[in-house]
């Protein structure tokens, strides 16, 4: 009886009696969710346009952040470093398209997926080789990102929001809105959607697959850079981020692989869900549950709706 109470009643009682803590947890979850969503966004971009599930998106985030910080630490002024990093991400997109995508263009999806595993490992090694493996500090001040916290007295207690997190949420929203507009309104965006639908049909109307892929991987690289900056600003820039980036996969399952709004919604659900779960139910089973909650949630979800919230139902034809 006591156990049932602990599982089904008590957490909600706690939420009610300390609403400031509840809102704080919600906020923390949302912030985490925004960052997951950003990573998922990179996946969606690449998947939408090339059908490739880019497992390396997580490491691209780390790599972008490392490059930025590494350049700065080598003496390059902050905004120049930023510009150079963007150039590096473009070079990366270009190289990946040449060295990985083009040779594998007709292979089944699972082969391309595994190729991105190889890419991930390569970038991990390369990043560590060039920049060293120790955690680094993100150059938040030099990029004029806000510091400090805003505290509210509300709901009987105190709620503190880091200004950086607010900035992150704003920047993410702007980026998502920009991408949505880009996809639906511009010529290149339309070409991207055409390529996502059918490579051969896109080719037949004269769209250059290679160009599109370079563009889209570059866009994903930019998203990765922004994500890397935001994430690196909250905690350090380290390779642990790569494992955290795996959490973007459940986000994609919830939101569907091809939907930008889905990535956002999915990210928020996962972020808030795992924080709430860990804070209110975690202590019952020993804590640390945020390492697996997202995945189990995605698994449960897959059992009932294999295509995700926003994805398309696949009808098999013989």
């Amino acid at each position, binding site marked *: 009886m006591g156990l049932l109470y602990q599982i089904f009643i008590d957490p909600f009682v706690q939420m009610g009696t300390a609403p400031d803590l509840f809102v704080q947890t919600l906020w923390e979850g949302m912030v985490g969710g925004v960052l997951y969503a950003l990573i998922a966004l990179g996946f969606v971009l690449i998947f939408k346009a090339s059908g490739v599930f880019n497992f390396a998106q997580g490491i691209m985030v780390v790599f972008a952040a490392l490059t930025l910080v590494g350049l700065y630490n080598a003496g390059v002024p902050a905004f120049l470093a930023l510009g150079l990093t963007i150039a590096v991400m473009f070079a990366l997109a270009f190289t990946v398209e040449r060295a990985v995508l083009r040779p594998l263009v007709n292979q089944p999806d699972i082969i391309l997926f595994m190729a991105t595993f190889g890419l991930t490992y390569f970038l991990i090694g390369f990043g560590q080789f060039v920049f060293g493996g120790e955690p680094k500090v993100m150059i938040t001040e030099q990029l004029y990102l806000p510091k400090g916290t805003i505290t509210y007295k509300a709901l009987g207690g105190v709620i503190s929001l880091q200004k950086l997190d607010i900035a992150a949420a704003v920047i993410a929203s702007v980026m998502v809105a920009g991408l949505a507009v880009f996809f639906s309104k511009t010529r290149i965006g339309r070409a991207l959607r055409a390529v996502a639908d059918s490579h051969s049909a896109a080719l037949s109307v004269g769209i250059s697959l290679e160009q599109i892929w370079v563009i889209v991987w570059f866009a994903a690289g930019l998203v990765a850079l922004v994500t890397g900056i935001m994430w690196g600003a909250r905690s350090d820039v380290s390779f642990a981020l790569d494992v955290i980036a795996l959490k973007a996969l459940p986000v994609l399952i919830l939101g569907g692989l091809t939907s930008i709004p889905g990535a956002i919604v999915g990210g928020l659900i996962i972020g808030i869900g795992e924080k709430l779960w860990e804070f209110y139910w975690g202590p019952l089973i020993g804590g640390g549950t945020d390492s*697996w909650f997202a995945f189990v949630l995605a698994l449960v979800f897959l059992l009932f709706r294999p295509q995700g919230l926003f994805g398309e139902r696949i009808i098999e034809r013989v």
Partner: protein
Amino acid sequence: MFYREAGQFKTTYASDEAIFPILQDRIGILIILAVAFVVIPAFGNDFFINAVMTPFLIFSLASIGLNLLTGYTGLLSLGTGGFMGIGAYACYKLTTIFPDVNIIVWIIVSGFFSAAVGVLFGLPSLRIKGFYLAIATLAAQFFLEWCFIRIPWLYNYNVSAAIEVPQRELFGVIITGPRATAETRYLIVLTIVTVMTWVASNIVHGRIGRMWMAVRDMDIAAELMGIRLLPTKLLAFAVSSFYCGVAGALLVFLWYGGAESTVFSINESFTVLFMIIIGGLGSLLGSFLGAALIYILPIVLRFVPPELGIPLHAATVEHITFMITGALIVFFLIAEPAGLARLWQIGKQKLRVWPFPY
């Protein structure tokens, strides 16, 4: 010239169904076994046996396990590390609760625990396919990793959350624990791996192997032929996890001598997956070749450059290993998706007609 089938006619279906119908192949296998069982323990030094041969065999076994699931049945799994861990922890609990039972028995039994959990996490495969299934196996991996830390009963409430292997004997010879010799442990591992490889070979050449490959290649056609998908897939999960569980138990009991939860992390899952991608999906030989390449690569990198006068930090070796592994994966997927095993087959084809070009 040597490698010819000319003159080797099969007069019964039974002999044609043999796994090594060509005489030269059979001789080759016997030679390999002779080297493995006799030459290496007699002439190899402790370091070679303990740091190279024993782990190579253990990872080959894990690779076979994953290959059965991913290479033969087409179910991509990222939970290998977790399944290996179940085997290790199950063996630990069993031998600490029942210390008088032979440790080999417990090593094999712990495979069944892995198999059971494997079947549980394989249930979603009825509805989920391909890359989505891989995500589901990630759930298994992370959840199991969490269990290995947060369930103290598993490591007997040891303060450091690590397990230490107790000393066990077989026929009076010490085989586990710090006093067991490298040769003894190597021979035990070799025997178990040889037997299990033989069994795996039997399975994949028979009805079950065909069912698995049918499910992999075109599950709709397989279903319409009467192959029931869920039992077939669950069997694949069970057998695969069994192999990985035994490999995990061997890893801890006959090699490391102890373990903590980080030993069975997602990195293990990726390492074994890379072994079978490079070695060859759907090939038992490939499992061995891939394990050899991926496992021996960092060792080569650690020891060869200093011989050549190029000093390398240990950390740099690790970084370069990652880069080369990643590049190799991409290279193999482009050049030869069927991996080293296919290269081997092509080599054998050329050997067949040697010294003629075609």
